[in-house]
C-alpha cells in the first residue's frame, strides 16, 4: 500500500482511503469529475483551483478550500471515523457571489448522500451551508463566500487494514 509522504507525481492514487493525503485527493477528484444534473462541472467555475487547507498567494478568484476534521469514537473499536469536511468557496469582487453560490450548488449535489465503496467506505450524510456575511475592517468587504460543512462516515483503509 502506498502512502505518499510528499505529493509528487504518481505518488497519489485515487480512489483511496489508504492515507489522509489520498482521502483528500479522492474527495478533490470526486468534486472535479462530478457532472451536475444540468450538465455543469466545477471546472467551469473554479477551473482546478480546489486547495487543501489554504490557497496559494496571490490567488485567482473564485476558488475552493477543503478542510477535514476526523474523529473516531469507541464504537466500532475506533475504526469508523466521523469526518467533518469544511468547504469554503470564495470570490472577489462582490459580483462573483452568484458564481460562488452556483459552484457550491454543484458541491452540494456531489457530496449530499455521497457514497464511495471503492476503497474502504465513505458515505456522506447531513450538511450545513451558510453564505458568509459581509465583514468590515480589517477584512476586505469585497470578498464573498459560502461555507458548508458535510458530515461523513469513513471506514478508512489506513485504519481498517489492521483487521486484515
Amino acid at each position, binding site marked *: 500500500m502506498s502512502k505518499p509522504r510528499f505529493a509528487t507525481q504518481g505518488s497519489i492514487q485515487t480512489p483511496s482511503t489508504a492515507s489522509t493525503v489520498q482521502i483528500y485527493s479522492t474527495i478533490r477528484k470526486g468534486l472535479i469529475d462530478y457532472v451536475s444534473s444540468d450538465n455543469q462541472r466545477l471546472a467551469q467555475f473554479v477551473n482546478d483551483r480546489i486547495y487543501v487547507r*489554504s490557497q496559494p498567494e496571490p490567488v485567482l478568484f473564485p476558488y475552493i478550500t477543503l478542510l477535514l476534521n476526523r474523529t473516531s469514537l469507541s464504537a466500532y473499536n475506533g475504526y469508523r471515523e466521523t469526518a467533518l469536511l469544511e468547504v469554503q468557496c470564495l470570490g472577489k469582487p462582490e459580483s462573483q457571489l452568484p458564481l460562488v453560490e452556483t459552484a457550491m450548488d454543484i458541491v452540494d449535489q456531489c457530496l449530499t448522500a455521497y457514497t464511495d465503496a471503492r476503497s474502504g467506505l465513505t458515505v456522506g450524510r447531513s450538511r450545513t451551508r451558510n453564505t458568509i*456575511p459581509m465583514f468590515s475592517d480589517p477584512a476586505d468587504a469585497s470578498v464573498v463566500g459560502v461555507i458548508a460543512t458535510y458530515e461523513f462516515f469513513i471506514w478508512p483503509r489506513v485504519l481498517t487494514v489492521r483487521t486484515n
Partner: protein
Amino acid sequence: MFRVATTLTDNSALTLRRYDDAARAGVVVSSQHLLNELRKAYQDYYTTGDFRSTLQIRQALRRSNPERGVDGWYALVGVPTKNVTPKGQKKSVDRGLVALGWELGHNNLFLGKRVRVQIVAPAAAEAAEGMRKAWARTVKRMMEAP
C-alpha cells in the same frame, strides 16, 4: 378489593418531571463551563498586537437561558448580535461579526493576505469532555436528591 393492602407506585411522573428539571440545569452548567473555557481562550491577540479585539470579544461572550428544542434542552454560547460603539470611537462594531471573521478566515486589508485564527472550534472540542462531566454531575445530584 384488597384488605391490608400496600400500594406500590413507580413514581414515573415525578421522576420524569425531576429529570426534565435536572436536564435543564445540566444544560445551564455545561454551557457555563463552555463559556468559562471560551473566556480563557480569548485572552491573546489574534496575530499580533495590531489585532487586539479578542479582549472585546471576551467581554461580549454570553450564554443564553436553556430553551426546549425538538431533541431536548439547548442553550447558545457565543457573542450576541449587537452593534456597540466603543468608547472614544464614532463607528459601531458588531463584535460577533468580528469574531466570526477571524474564526472562518478573512482577507485582511492590512496584512494583504487571507488570515484565519480559530479559537472557538478548538476550545469547544477541548471543553466537550468537561461539559459532559458537568452535565452528568448535575443530573446525578438532582436525581439523587431526597
